């Protein structure tokens, strides 16, 4: 068993803009993350956080550098193998929720299972219902995203990220579009997912209060990691039942 869930060394991402100009979004990033960690990634806008997360999530490929997830070297994977890993090992939570509109909450949550195969419609519904219940949206299964508040939509997105029982969740500014109250709720939810289910969580934020829920803080600037430290005074969190 590999101890480090994530192993990154000397990662570069260069976006060519024109023949002369290119953007160096990541400039030699190295990082290891163990199973069960709860990491926040911070940094100014444009410092490369999203680029980094997208590469970690196999949504994007680095220009150079090595990335190993759970013992699998990303550079050896083809397009469909990456899709398979996203489907089985990873859960995504985005700032803009990224739910399918005009599609009910339960159908949104079922979506990853649809692409997994070997699972009956009945099992899919049961699982989706279970996770919707867990994040406190029981009874709202057939609401469409437009009928849910921002906080509720983000919780549907979290249920969708959980339904395939992933080893790791990547969340890019999950509270960026939420008010303080909903931010607290969502962060409490993440905390309990990490504590109670042992899911590794990596979360991008620019809000220091949000970072305080996590156990480890990594700070980016201009495509470099400039600080990597444990969070000292963690916020006390617990999952509130509603």
């Amino acid at each position, binding site marked *: 068993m590999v101890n480090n869930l994530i192993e990154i060394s000397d990662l570069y991402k260069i976006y060519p803009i024109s023949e002369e100009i290119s953007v160096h979004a990541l400039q030699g990033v190295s990082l290891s993350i163990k199973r069960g960690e709860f990491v926040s990634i911070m940094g100014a806008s444009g410092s490369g956080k999203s680029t980094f997360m997208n590469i970690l999530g196999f949504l994007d490929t680095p220009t150079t550098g090595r990335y190993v997830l759970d013992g699998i070297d990303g550079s050896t994977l083809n397009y469909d193998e990456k899709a398979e890993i996203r489907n089985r090992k990873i859960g*995504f939570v985005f700032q803009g929720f990224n739910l399918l509109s005009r599609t009910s909450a339960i159908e949104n949550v079922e979506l990853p299972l649809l692409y997994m195969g070997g699972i009956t419609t009945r099992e899919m519904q049961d699982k989706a219902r279970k996770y919707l219940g867990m994040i406190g949206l029981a009874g709202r299964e057939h609401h469409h995203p437009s009928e849910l508040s921002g906080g509720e939509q983000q919780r549907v997105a979290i249920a969708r990220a959980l339904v395939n029982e992933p080893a790791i969740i990547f969340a890019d500014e999950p509270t960026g579009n939420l008010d303080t109250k909903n931010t607290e709720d969502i962060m409490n939810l993440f905390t309990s997912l990490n504590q109670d289910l042992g899911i590794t969580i990596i979360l991008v934020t620019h809000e220091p209060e949000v970072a305080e829920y996590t156990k480890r803080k990594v700070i980016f600037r201009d495509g470099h990691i400039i600080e990597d430290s444990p969070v000292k005074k963690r916020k006390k969190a617990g999952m509130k039942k509603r």
Partner: protein
Amino acid sequence: MNFKNLFITALRALNRNKMRSALTSIGIIIGVSSVIMMIGIGNSARIAVREKIFTYGANAMSVYDSKKPLTLRDVENIDRLLPQVRYISPFVYKSYVLTKGGGQFIYSRLYGVNNDFFKIKSWPLTNGRYFTEREIAASEKVVIIGNSVRTELFGYTNPVGEVLNVDGLPFKIVGLLTEMGQALSGRDFDNVLIVPHTTAAMKIMGKRTFDEIYVSTYSETEIDETVEQLKEYFRRTHVILPGKMNDFKIKTSKEKLQMVKYISNTLSILLAGIASISLFVGGVGIMNIMLVSVSERTREIGIRMAIGAKRRDILTQFLIESVTLSGAGGIVGMLLGLGVYYLIIFFVDWPFIFSFFSIIVAFFFSCAVGIFFGYYPARKAADLKPIEALRYE
């Protein structure tokens, strides 16, 4: 992702845009329905025309438009010289004769013939009998009438034995022809009076020559040979020098059949043209809408890819959408086409011909159109990069 789920996903997507889906299918619907309709009408017309042509008589031919008169001697000579001739009949006609009977009157066509004429034309009788030898020899005033003459003058009673006033002369009705129906031109085959050729010549026309001579052979294979021999005979008797044109014409039932074949082949080619154009237009419509749909749903595609959709899943999803559009359009078009075809056939009273083959072909083609024209948009969707699709606004 299994096929059933992909299918459900595709149906949901189409269902979300019901109006657009319906409008997109209209091209295919119109294409397929017009194809089904026209194949049907083509088949029916072919049958209807063929039936009419057989009323001309099988293996039949006639000599007409002769500059020199056709005479009874010609009839006798041909009958003697050409052993393959089975039936032969003189033919004279008058387009309009005033016919009175049962207190009514109509204008009818009048034919002067012998009994062979009925065999050549395969015109059976419903009531009564053909002419007797005596009646023909003695130019007796007897007449066999068509069904329209009966219904116009005598209603639905049996007219045999009644007296009919033809061109001012009293004729005894001895027979009633079986109903033949209308020609495609609308001409009524049944508005006809048939009298012995001798009677026609002596009592009505005042001439002893014929307008045409009808001939039929024992078998179809003898038609060409007989036509040649007839030409030879008339060139000889009309004293036409080699190299000069005939001063008469010969038409055969075979020529008419070939004409029908030609018309129906032309019709088929035309239909194939219309079919391919309309299906092409329908296909382009589907491609257009699918391209719009792919670009509108770029974000959705990105989301699906992020949570694990493989390229094939996306490709198949969009292909199923386009095939569903075209296939459903095909089915609706088929039903619509059959419905309209049935209506038209019902009103013109042609036979309804259900062509299972054309339905299978139309459905198959509409699905093929969906695959062909849906492939490019689906490929475009599947080739999107997840991160770019997700970032798409």
